[in-house]
């Protein structure tokens, strides 16, 4: 299991979930592409971090890391002054998708822990409103 394969699991599932919405919402990954321009445009930014890579495991070889802990933060951006419904719907889509990652997909699964949020940040000078959710996870594979 590599960090790339964990990223791939989150990115594929969340992109599929947000593509299925009407209208569909683009998902921006870490260091891949820029956020769409225009304050009226919605988008979702997915941030994954791995603060703790070394966990005790039972393994024959040192190279086979089987458990990786990480943090996922999903930021849902939308136009300001249009109410919270759409933004909270986006956050709910993200939360329900994260909960499906427990089921094994190819060789990896990610157990997402308690989800914090949705936290809304609408009082900033960012032209978009933001609702964010976050959770820790344990990836096994």
């Amino acid at each position, binding site marked *: 299991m590599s960090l790339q394969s964990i990223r791939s699991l989150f990115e594929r599932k969340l992109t599929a979930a947000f593509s299925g919405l009407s209208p569909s919402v683009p998902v921006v990954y870490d260091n891949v592409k820029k956020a769409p321009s225009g304050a009226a445009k919605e988008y979702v930014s997915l941030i994954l971090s791995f603060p703790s890579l070394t966990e005790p495991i039972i393994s024959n070889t040192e190279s086979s890391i089987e458990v990786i802990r990480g943090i996922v933060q999903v*930021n849902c951006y939308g136009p300001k002054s249009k109410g919270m419904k759409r933004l909270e719907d986006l956050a709910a889509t993200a939360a329900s998708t994260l909960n499906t990652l427990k089921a094994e997909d190819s060789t990896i699964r990610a157990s997402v822990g308690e989800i914090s949020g949705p936290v809304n*940040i609408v009082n900033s000078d960012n032209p978009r409103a933001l609702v964010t959710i*976050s959770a820790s996870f344990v990836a096994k594979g």
Partner: protein
Amino acid sequence: MALKNWVPNVKKALNQAMADHIVLTQSKLAQANPKDTGRMASSWFVGKDKPDLSVRPPDWSTPAKRKYAAKGTKGEIVQPGVTKLEVKEYRNKITFDADWYISNNLPYSQRVAYDPIYAKGAPGGVAWFVTIAKQQKKDIKKRITNQLRKIK
């Protein structure tokens, strides 16, 4: 070990674990915080049973001076700012039998904590706050276990 000796030792271990956890988390937040003048990074305060709502003053340090070519533009830095970082030490005893808050009450702290647009250049990465907040349970568990192991 007699039970009468064991109980105070456990209390002492729990107090130590809680004190380590609060102090280290406060400094971890200050270090990971994005810094310009250092006002926000210096405004993480520890409160017992209720949040300490104090903040550092607006003239905490000298911000960078910018020259703007036109209104609405980013501006060019003509004189760099001064970053001043001071973590306020909690002076009283930290014990396990209280609720502890580490808070930051600046009006912009929430957006810097959650919105990556405002967290550019943060030493702890764009998700610096969530990364620390989400590790709290694991960190305190580890600290309690380590302290309890020391009881002979």
